[in-house]
């Protein structure tokens, strides 16, 4: 399987960037601390039905897996800009699958390398500041498939963004817009559990909520294990839709690909 080989190579490559990681982790932890401090101050004034420990856990998990959302394949963007993408079209593999495997390895390794040290530190913080243990062992077990489905979902979203780059040749603009939409609707900017209840009903069905919000809700016990298959169903639905849309857009782009010569 060529796709699996690409995936493995990319995993190894991502492992090389350990130096760049430390600065990123410290920064991300600092942001996490600020957010937890803010929510603690807010809770001191008016406690909510969701306990503060869950909110702190939500914040830490979002920060720890931040890299899963905002990591893009800069080599691919360069190739699109320079026209080297033409060489990829000659390869005997499906381009979409090839880059899907690459971005998945990058997002998986990038986030795991950051998440593990961050979560260890977050566990050591005092209760109410740091991350709490999962609601139960069963909840932890049900969170893992949700996280994997979330990973599949975010890679499909990333490839749709890339499809737009192929059209416009400028990685800013609409891509920036899509990323910002993702930050807001995935719960990174503000926990989705604290959005008004009527909004949550809609937002949790959108693809962005499938990335990290769904697994986190399992972890904190918001979703019960017996709901698991309903949630996985929604996630799988989006994975299929988004991949289909991505493949369609990539194929359409291939037909009208303009290669920047020179």
């Amino acid at each position, binding site marked *: 399987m060529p796709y699996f080989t690409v995936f493995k190579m990319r995993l190894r490559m991502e492992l090389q960037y350990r130096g*760049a990681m430390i*600065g*990123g982790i*410290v*920064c991300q932890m*600092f*942001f996490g*601390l*600020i*957010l937890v*401090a*803010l929510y603690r*101050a*807010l809770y*001191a*004034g*008016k406690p*909510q039905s969701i306990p503060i420990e869950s909110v702190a856990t939500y914040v830490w998990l979002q920060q720890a897996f931040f890299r899963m959302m905002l990591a893009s394949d800069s080599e691919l963007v360069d190739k699109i800009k320079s026209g080297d993408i033409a060489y990829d079209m000659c390869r005997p593999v499906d381009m979409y699958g090839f880059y899907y495997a690459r971005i998945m390895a990058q997002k998986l390794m990038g986030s795991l390398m950051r998440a593990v040290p961050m979560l260890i530190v977050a566990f050591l913080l005092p209760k109410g500041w740091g991350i709490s243990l999962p609601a139960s062992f069963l909840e932890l077990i049900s969170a893992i498939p949700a996280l994997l489905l979330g990973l599949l979902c975010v890679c499909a979203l990333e490839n749709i963004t890339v499809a737009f780059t192929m059209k*416009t040749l*400028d990685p*800013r*603009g*609409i891509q*920036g*817009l899509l990323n*910002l*939409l993702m*930050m*807001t609707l995935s719960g990174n*900017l*503000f926990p989705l559990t*604290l*959005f*008004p209840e009527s909004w949550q009903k809609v937002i949790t069905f959108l693809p962005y909520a499938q990335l990290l919000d769904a697994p986190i809700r399992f972890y904190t016990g918001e979703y019960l294990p017996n709901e698991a298959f309903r949630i996985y169903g929604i996630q799988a639905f989006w994975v299929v839709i988004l991949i289909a849309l991505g493949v369609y857009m990539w194929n359409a782009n291939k037909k009208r690909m303009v290669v920047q010569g020179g």
Partner: protein
Amino acid sequence: MNTLKLYIKSIGILLKSHLQYPSSFFMQTLAQLVMEGGEMMVVILIVDRFESLKGWSGGNLYFFFGIMSVSFYLTEMFGRGITGDFPSMIRTGRLDTFLVRPRGVLTQVLCGGTDPRRITCIAVGVAALIMGSNFSNIVWNPLKVLVLVESIAMSCLLILGLFMIEAIFCIFSVKSVELVNAITYGGRSACQYPIDIYPLPLRALFTVIAPFALTMHVPASWILDKPLYGWPSWTAFVTPLSGALVFAVMTVLFHLGIRHYRSTGS
């Protein structure tokens, strides 16, 4: 004066160059609007759910948010040379050409970059200020306007000074140092809410080392008639000057750093 004229002229030229790609420029400006709008929405959602924050009403929170957005993005708009482009100037050796010209290096760096896309972020900030002022029933008088202008101007100098820390590190290490983002972007995230809601270590950091509290929160809370820590009113006029102090210190360090600058040779 001559320097200022030069600066305005180069900003004008850069603006023209940005407008050469109108559709890209338009999309990016729109993206900025969505970004800052998203941040603003978070504050609105917080006010909707929690109503108040340690004695600060919703209107007060919008006011604090507005002051931060306006200052931060004014700095990013006019100081792009320092806040964004500097690491690449070092890496590509563009800085070398500045050293042989008969103008200050810092002036040229600042003339070399502007980011007009930020205009929409500033607009969101202004909207937040107006909302905050209306909801908090601020009675404006010339003195309060003066303090607001002083606060924004000094905060801009402070933010520029903090970004210069990264620039100074960059002169020596060539790579951009992500860690400094903790006090620049981290400062923005933390200090768009009043400082007194945070525990002591964070308060100390943003009062003594990166004095956002002194340039923003002391004057803003005086304008809102809720003096921070009950400090007397003259503090609202004096403490923002710390922004100019940080900028002055960083300018001196920057010039010291430039003296040790070794080109990458590329």
